[in-house]
């Protein structure tokens, strides 16, 4: 399944930018905030960044027309509609915590308004590259878990007779059937 990239730029007032930066100091250590996001297993990655100044380089003349913004970069398995639906359903509080006072943000409770907001604020990605495009996030997580399980199996069957190998292999398959 091909991953879909999304880039969203949301203008925010200065005081909301300060709040977001302050909240990030704690949010990343609070499981109640991070766990539901991590459980959205179709996310390859999602990153948020505040753009305080355009451009960031202070030696370059400031782009005064460009507003202070919250940049959201993500890529995920499946369509953007599924992605937005999942966000609205699973993590509306977290989304409101980031976007509540972003300019024109309609709130994260209903799909249609937020879908329109994302349409209006997303910017097309000209080139996107993934090291393992054939693998979904779930496949990668399963493969890494399987690798660890197999690393534990290998020493126990090294030089084993046929019966021991067959028994251990069956146990391994039973334990890891959800990963294969």
């Amino acid at each position, binding site marked *: 399944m091909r*991953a879909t990239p999304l880039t969203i730029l949301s203008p925010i007032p200065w005081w909301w930018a300060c709040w977001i930066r302050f909240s990030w100091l704690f949010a990343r250590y609070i499981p109640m905030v991070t766990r539901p996001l991590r459980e959205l297993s179709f996310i390859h990655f999602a990153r*948020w960044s505040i753009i305080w100044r355009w451009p960031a380089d202070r030696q370059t003349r400031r782009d005064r027309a460009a*507003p202070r913004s919250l940049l959201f970069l993500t890529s995920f398995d499946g369509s953007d509609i599924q992605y937005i639906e999942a966000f609205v359903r699973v993590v509306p509080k977290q989304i409101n915590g980031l976007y509540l006072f972003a300019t024109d943000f309609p709130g994260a409770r209903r799909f249609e308004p937020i879908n329109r907001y994302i349409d209006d604020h997303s910017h097309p990605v000209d080139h996107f590259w993934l090291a393992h495009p054939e693998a979904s996030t779930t496949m990668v997580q399963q493969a890494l878990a399987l690798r660890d399980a197999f690393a534990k199996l290998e020493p126990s069957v090294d030089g084993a007779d046929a019966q021991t190998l067959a028994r251990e292999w069956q146990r391994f398959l039973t334990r890891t059937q959800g990963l294969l």
Partner: protein
Amino acid sequence: MTAAFILMAPLRGGEEDNARAAIAALNEPFARVPGTHLARLQVLRPPPRRFRGRTRYYLLLAADHDGALDEWLAAAARELDPVLAHCAFWPGADDVDEVVRWAKARQLHSGFWIVGAPDATVEEVGEALALRARLTRFAAETAGLSDDDLHARWPPR
């Protein structure tokens, strides 16, 4: 450990179409930048504030990569030079120190993030996916075999 790099660099005036054309002409550049998990390149223009005129165009380069940023930047700069050449004050890909200085001055830092597999390198992910395919095939091929036949075919290849 996967690290992120986000660059937002202003383009030289009127260079946005040329930058887009240069991006379109690239041939899988990140495949030749070791340790790149995923990456994106795009030309974007922030929406203007009211009564402040027009905004400039910017190049956004964002990547998740393994290893040290400076090494990744040096390799990426070589591959992306035709695109980065449209950015203001681009020093050229030859002087690595200048590239790193230029890029870090325009770098954005991510404040909050979610990463699918944060503890694995690109190489480890590739090996794990290959092992998973091998084990799946081996399990299918050896289903119902006697213990001796299973033993004869071990290890999974």
